[in-house]
């Protein structure tokens, strides 16, 4: 099981702040994950409509969409950051 966590409008559109999922075989990169998630329902489709604006972190470190998921325990999806 992999823990997925969502923030800001990604969280609002998906309708939950976290969930545990079993990733099917073949999901190797974060781009694969985003594409698979979009097929899980309207709420995911709406949150991930423009995957290019979605930022991803694995185990609390920024990663790129092309990076491998590897042994990730926690994957976070969120919009561009607006702190400071």
């Amino acid at each position, binding site marked *: 099981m992999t823990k997925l*966590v969502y*923030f*800001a*409008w990604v969280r609002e559109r998906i309708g939950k702040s976290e969930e545990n999922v079993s990733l099917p075989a073949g999901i190797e990169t974060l781009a694969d994950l985003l594409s698979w998630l979009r097929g899980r329902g309207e709420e995911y489709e709406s949150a991930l409509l423009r995957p290019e604006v979605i930022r991803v*972190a694995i185990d*609390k*470190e*920024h990663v790129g969409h092309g990076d491998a998921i590897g042994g990730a325990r926690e994957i*976070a999806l*969120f*919009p*561009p*950051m*607006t*702190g*400071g």
Partner: protein
Amino acid sequence: MTAAPVPVIRIQAEDFDVAAEIARLTEGNADVGAVVTFTGLCRDEGGRLAALELEHYPGMAEAEICRIAAEAMRRWPLLGLTAIHRHGMIPPGDDIVLVVAASTHRQAAFEAASFLMDFLKSRAPFWKKEHRADGFEGSWVDAREADDQAALRWRRR
């Protein structure tokens, strides 16, 4: 005189005390000749906003600011570095973020504080949601292209 200082990083709901944070970096260290602070405050956008709600990614917010602070310590000869970021509901006029940089000469303190803010803006996992004064549903603040550009300028070195 002193060992390499460890940056102070705090993510908190409460406000901070700029004078106390300056004193923490200067007291007992007479090598400090320059202290630069940056305070970011909630604007009311011409009366449109009732508050900003700051969401963050617990754990990653601290970790990411620690990484940025460590990079600043490598780039400049700093004698102290502090970053405090608030979360939760923040009304106009209230503080959101504080950075304090201390060094022997002013250039290092100015540059390090500016660097920390540029990277904090574009890499620290915080998101602002507007709460409108007129009661209508507010929206999430869009990332500013200017903030990404500001972070990029440090790559030229």
